[in-house]
Every structure is written in C-alpha cells, then in structure tokens.
C-alpha cells in the first residue's frame, strides 16, 4: 500500500510577488491580503521583489514583517530582493534585515530559497 502523503505540497519554484509604486497605508491592505491568500494556498517560499517599489512607509515595513511572521508560523520563508534606494534606507534604519533576509536580485533570492 502506498504511504499517505502527509507533507504539504511545495512547488519547485518560489512564489514571487512584485511590489510596485508605494507600500504604505493605502496599498498595504491589498498586498497583505494577496500574500496571505498565497500562504493559505500553500506557498511556503515567497520572494517580494521590490524592483519597482519606490517608497515604503513605517506601515509598509510593518506589513512585510507581519507577512514574514505569518509565513514563519506556516513553516515557510519570505525574503526580499531588488531594494530601491528609499526602501533600502528604511530597511537599514529599522534593521528589518535581521528578521527578513534581503538579496540583491531575484536569482540570488531563488538560490537562497531553493539551494
């Protein structure tokens, strides 16, 4: 008899969410909802690609942290890549990288999640 599959199905490629424009009070709820839906659907390795994200506020940082927390609780990992200058400045000032890994480009991020 075949053993029952008990582990969650993990796709070969990490999920990528491309953030655009601003991540602040006005956009954070939609980003949070989309990412949570991904986690609920089984995503356990997620890259937030910030190449087109030009502004992040304090609430934007909180949103990323909340998602990283939710992903960790689900047993997965969330990482960031391609930070633009203002986003990099906020991430550095808050020390977010101590909790959420940051990579230069998407290929480095993929490697970190799949390697």
């Amino acid at each position, binding site marked *: 008899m075949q053993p029952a599959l008990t582990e969650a199905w993990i796709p070969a490629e990490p999920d990528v969410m491309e953030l655009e424009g601003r991540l602040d009070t006005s956009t954070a709820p939609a980003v949070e909802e989309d990412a949570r839906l991904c986690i609920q659907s089984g995503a356990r390795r997620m890259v937030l690609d910030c190449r087109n994200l030009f502004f992040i*506020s304090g*609430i934007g*940082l909180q949103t990323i*942290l909340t998602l990283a*927390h939710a992903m960790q609780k689900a047993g997965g990992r969330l990482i960031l890549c391609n930070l633009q200058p203002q986003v990099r400045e906020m991430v550095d*000032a*808050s020390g977010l990288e101590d*909790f959420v890994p940051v990579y230069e480009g998407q290929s480095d991020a993929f490697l970190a999640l799949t390697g």
Partner: protein
Amino acid sequence: MTEHPPLTILEEFLLLALDDSTGQFYPLARSTFDCASAGAILMDLTLRRRIDNDLRHIFVVDAAPTGNPVLDPVLQPMTIAPVLTPKPITYWLRQLADEGEALRERALRQLEAHGILKREDKKILWMFGTRRYPILHQKEQREAKLRILGVVLRDDIPEVHDIMLVALAHACGLFRHILSDHELAGATARIEAVAQMDLIGQAVAKAVGEIETAIAMASGFR
C-alpha cells in the same frame, strides 16, 4: 470583570511599568514616562492606520475617529488643516509628551473601567499623598509580560504590536525590572534588534537618551 476591547499599547505599557507587588510604577523620570506615553499613543494611532511615517516625518492618513476615548482627543488636533502637513516624529513626541500625565490618567481610567486595576490614594503621616494602582485582574499584565518575554528570549519573527511594547520597555529601562540580570545580559542584543524595528520607538529611545544625559549633566553640575 466586564469584557473589554483589546488593550492599547499605552494601556499595556502602563501595566508593564507597574510593579504588581507594590501597585506603584517602577521608578522612571517623569520626562521619560511622558515621552514613552507620547510614543505609545503614536504607535496606537499607527496600528489603527490613522497616521503613518517615514524615517523622519509623521503624516495623518485618516482623520476618522478611532472610537477610543484616549486616542481620539489626540488625533483630532493632528487633523486640523495647518497641522496636516507632515511634521517630524520628534515634533509630535514633544507635543504629546507635554500632555503625558493627562494621557496616562485617561488610560489608567480606562484600565479601571475595564476592572483591571483600581486606584488607591493614601496619606502618609497625614501629609504626603501616595497613589497606588493595585492590580485586580492579573491576566492582562501577565499576558503582556509573557508576550514580550517570549519575543526577547526566542528568535522568532515578532509581531508588530509586541515590537512596539519591547521598544517602549527598552527605551525606559523596564527590562531590568522584568528580567533577571543574567537573562538581561543574554537578551540585550535581541532586545536592541527588536526595539530598532519600530521607527517611532527609535525616536522615543533617542529622546529618552537626551533626557537622561541632561539629567546626568544637571546633577553633575550641582
């Protein structure tokens, strides 16, 4: 005890600052307490998505009342047109710190109304008034302590609400009352990393540091 809404950051901070064995607050400089109370209010408004911030400025993003009797009187003047332009975080910290005692008083009345603590005024030698806040219902204080202990003693990614409490407790030196010397030594790096995460908390810590330096210099010159 009646059912109550989730406690605000200021209410939980006050419970953490309260020594449950005496019913009195741990010794904190008045200006430090005022500054931390102001920071707690700004954090509460952030959690309710009424204000947002970048590295230096706070901006009002939603003027709608929160329904909280402590937060709404603070939010309302922030939404008046001349003030609506972004102001430095330190500006709002100073403005609200001037009302620190009144903010705490309102939050303590909320905690009394929730049946979590009571107020006791006594006279010593018929002259000196002392006020205590014996805790009637320890669940809330215990939960807040356990949550922030969990944050600083483990390596998990913390929740935003708990980061704010850790930042305030760290800025005011409350961890030396909550942790043993041994635990504190082991957790200091983690406490600093968690506290750094909140930009308003950073501004509170900086302001408290300046206050402590000023106090130290003033006592040195006496």
